[in-house]
């Protein structure tokens, strides 16, 4: 008789491990931050500007303070110390001082016993504004998705209210407020010129990138730099002139968003590669292979690729994925463009096949180096406890930490202590496709140190280790060239083949199938990696087909999920993914971050398929029926 299979929950590195949060999230039992309660808790509420640009003449909080249940009403006067903050440099007031610069900017805060009391008190705050002429940028394309966890929004506000009221305070943004109070992806306008030899070898790329940063900087400078660094795509380009500019406007602030600048430029660069292929009469996949970036090549920033970057392999493997044959008619309308709307029985339908490849950096870059700590306790009873403050934001890092610990320690009985910096040093932020890479490095090192310690001294062991990635240095702001050995830690590429159908008479689309090949280094939990690929693809599909923040004079006009559409399960095609394991030499187990590459490339790949189906240039996303059937 064979030994019973180890419970899926207790898998080691490289095995599929079932996620403990999967079922509670599906059944609605999972406790999100907004479900938190504390004894004596107050509710925080934000008073926001109704203007995109105005002088604040006065703020009268007298009546609000006298409202029932109110414990604190704060304005900029109550902000102790630094009154400005920002991810890269402090330019954003915690609470508006004498001016507001975007619609919905925070002006005052209220904490009260009940959320409705807080809301009513907020209505009693009288703010006198003098509207000012706005900084305007016309014709900026707008393309957006969810705002950033990486950014600050209510954190400072909540802390201030709690400080003043000496009570726990809860703040929850409703959907509309989330649209207003969180950063967005930078809308971009891009001009690109590609030159190549007759044989299809790229000679030069020129690109001008203009990004709308909104009213405050947030991470705009890093996004702007990233857009430039990855503007050429994963190709060996001997000459590149990239100009990347971000401007302040009175639009909603933009910041970090999955793909971080590389999404916008991948869309432009891959459209160019398809055009170039058509112009040269070379198969688009072949053209990409002829230019594929590889270790040893030098990036436009001057950085030589030292680690893993199997671009040609990624392209080949995605191109080899066989799309399903065109389905016969008649079909269930759900499998036709127009979906449930029952708009066609096959009339007007044209099928298109597209391809795109993209890449981006992993981990913090350009001298923003950071670290991740982990602490491991080996207990008398043979079990172990791991402390690591890596934020579980749905990506599954908690599972990865346990897999690493079980693998290193060779035991099943490992517990993960609550994610907190109270018992262990910082893990840094869950962003930049870095958390799994950094946490697995830190936990691996702490486990190995703990085993050594026990070997040496015996008994219970408690040890903490800090993991750092290879040092990076900033890019020269004038030339964009590296100022040290590297500006970026590592890279990951992803390629997608897409089949789409378009109803040419109605302009309605349907993405039928996506085949993806992604360079993952080592899949620590293959199912979780595939989940990231599908999720990232869904976001890219939203950007390609429907998601767009619309504004009028700085005011978001579609700040709800009724008006701002996101893809449903019916809009998502099956995604067939191939994981390419080419270990990253400097990373624990060779694993790379996997969250962003699919978002970088899916929008571009879907557009490529839509162009093939329609014969149109389609140089703007999202593609709506207007773009297909409009004049």
């Amino acid at each position: 008789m064979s030994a019973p299979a180890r419970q899926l929950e207790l898998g080691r590195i490289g095995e599929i491990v079932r996620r403990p949060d999967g079922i509670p999230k599906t059944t609605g039992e999972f406790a999100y931050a907004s479900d938190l309660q504390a004894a004596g808790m107050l509710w925080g509420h934000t008073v926001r500007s109704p203007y995109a640009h105005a002088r604040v003449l006065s703020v009268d909080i007298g009546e609000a303070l006298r409202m029932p249940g109110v414990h604190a009403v704060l304005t900029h006067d109550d902000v102790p110390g630094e009154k400005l903050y920002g991810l890269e440099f402090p330019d954003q007031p915690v609470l508006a001082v004498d001016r507001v610069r975007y619609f919905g900017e925070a002006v005052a805060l209220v904490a009260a016993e009940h959320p409705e009391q807080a809301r009513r008190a907020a209505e009693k705050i009288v703010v006198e504004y003098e509207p000012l002429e706005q900084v305007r940028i016309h014709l900026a394309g707008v393309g957006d998705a969810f705002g950033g966890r990486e950014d600050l929004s209510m954190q400072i506000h909540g802390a201030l209210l709690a400080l003043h009221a000496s009570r726990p305070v809860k703040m929850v943004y409703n959907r509309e407020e989330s649209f207003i109070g969180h950063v967005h992806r930078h809308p971009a306008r891009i001009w690109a010129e590609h030159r190549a030899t007759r044989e299809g070898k790229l000679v030069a790329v020129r690109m001008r990138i203009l990004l709308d940063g909104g009213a405050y900087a947030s991470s705009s400078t890093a996004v702007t730099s990233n857009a430039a660094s990855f503007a050429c795509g994963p190709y060996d380009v001997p000459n590149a002139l990239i100009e990347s500019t971000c401007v302040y406007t009175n639009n909603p602030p933009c910041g970090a968003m999955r793909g971080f600048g590389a999404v916008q430029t991948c869309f432009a660069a891959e459209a160019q590669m398809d055009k170039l292929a058509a112009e040269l009469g070379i198969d688009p996949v072949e053209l990409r292979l002829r230019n594929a970036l590889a270790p040893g090549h030098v990036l436009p920033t001057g950085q030589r690729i030292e680690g893993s970057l199997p671009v040609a392999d990624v392209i080949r493997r995605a191109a080899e994925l066989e799309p399903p044959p065109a389905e016969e008619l008649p079909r269930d309308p759900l499998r036709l463009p127009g979906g449930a709307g029952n708009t066609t029985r096959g009339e007007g339908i044209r099928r298109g096949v597209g391809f795109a490849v993209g890449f981006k950096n992993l981990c913090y870059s350009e001298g923003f180096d950071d670290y991740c700590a982990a602490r491991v306790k080996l207990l008398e009873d043979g079990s172990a406890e791991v402390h690591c403050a890596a934020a579980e934001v749905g990506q599954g890092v908690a599972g990865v930490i346990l897999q690493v610990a079980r693998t290193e320690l060779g035991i099943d009985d490992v517990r993960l202590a609550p994610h907190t910096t109270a018992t262990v040093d910082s893990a840094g932020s869950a962003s930049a496709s870095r958390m799994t890479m950094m946490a697995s490095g830190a936990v691996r090192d702490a486990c190995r140190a703990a085993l050594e310690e026990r070997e040496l001294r015996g008994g219970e062991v408690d040890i903490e280790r800090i993991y750092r990635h290879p040092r990076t240095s900033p890019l020269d702001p004038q030339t964009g060239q590296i100022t040290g050995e590297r500006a970026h830690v590592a890279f990951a590429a992803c390629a997608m083949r897409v089949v789409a159908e378009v109803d040419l008479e109605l302009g309605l689309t349907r993405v039928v199938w996506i085949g993806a090949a992604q360079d993952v280094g080592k899949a620590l939990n293959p199912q979780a990696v595939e989940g990231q690929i599908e999720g990232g693809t869904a976001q890219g599909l939203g950007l390609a087909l429907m998601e767009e923040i619309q504004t009028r004079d700085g005011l978001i006009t579609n700040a709800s999920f009724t008006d701002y559409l996101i893809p449903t399960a019916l809009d998502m095609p099956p995604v067939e993914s191939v994981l390419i394991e080419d270990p990253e030499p400097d990373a624990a187990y060779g694993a790379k971050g996997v969250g962003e590459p699919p978002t970088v490339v899916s929008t571009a790949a879907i557009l490529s398929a839509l162009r093939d189906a329609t014969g149109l240039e389609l140089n703007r996303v999202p593609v709506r029926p207007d773009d297909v059937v409009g004049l």
Partner: protein
Amino acid sequence: MELRQPSSAEEAVGLLGNGHVALAGGTEIVPLLRDGLLRADALIDIRRAVPRGIHGTTIGAGTTLAELEVDPGIPVVLREACRLAASPQLRAMGSIGGNLLQATRCWYWRLDFPCYLHGGDRCHAKDGRHDEHAIFGNDVCASAHPSDVAAALLALGTMLRTTARELPLAELYRLPTTDDPQTTTLADDELILELEVPIPEASVYLKAMDRQRWSFPIVGVAAARTAGEVRLGLAGVAPVPWTLTSVDDLDRATPLPGTAYKLPIARALVARALRAVATG
């Protein structure tokens, strides 16, 4: 705010008007109250006052869309329009009467821009983005009526019975003018009680949306063939549900720069709908 729950239509009519507003499923009215777009001193819950249920060709105005979408006895076009409206949760609460009386989805109106429909003196949509807006009847207000259900009922030649009168559905609606922003002819103290829905020989509803499901119509086309004659009702093309008397009516559309794309969509959908009811 006060909530009253009358048990008969007469009682309800007596309570309505003067800031007392009818509440059915509340899916439309509650968000409007919350966003300050509608003011009411009292809500009159009419669910016990208005008939609910399907009896042959008569449909109670209080019948929910969820009840209609699964009823095998009602015409396909109506069943499909109900099934394609909103989301399952909203259809479980939303009534067919409330659906006919839903307010425009125009963002400017919903954000309280002082436009014609709010009693102002211009249409903010026309000088801003207006891709979702109208291609017919858009001289004054350019909003696009979102009701799939009304388009279906127009195609079917539905008659309404209210607490005051009987009327063809088309007469429930009026195009807003510069001095009267009303889009319906319903009095403040008038309730829709029942709908009389003829059974056609064939019918179909085609709805172009910005995603595969759960969105308002870009253009919705309802077609029903009765005694060899086909009638067409359109959603998403005019400030009120729109009837096409013939395909040639499409030549009289007045698209705006941002809505021009809706015309080819309407043309193609009308052609497809006509083909479907010719054979089906």
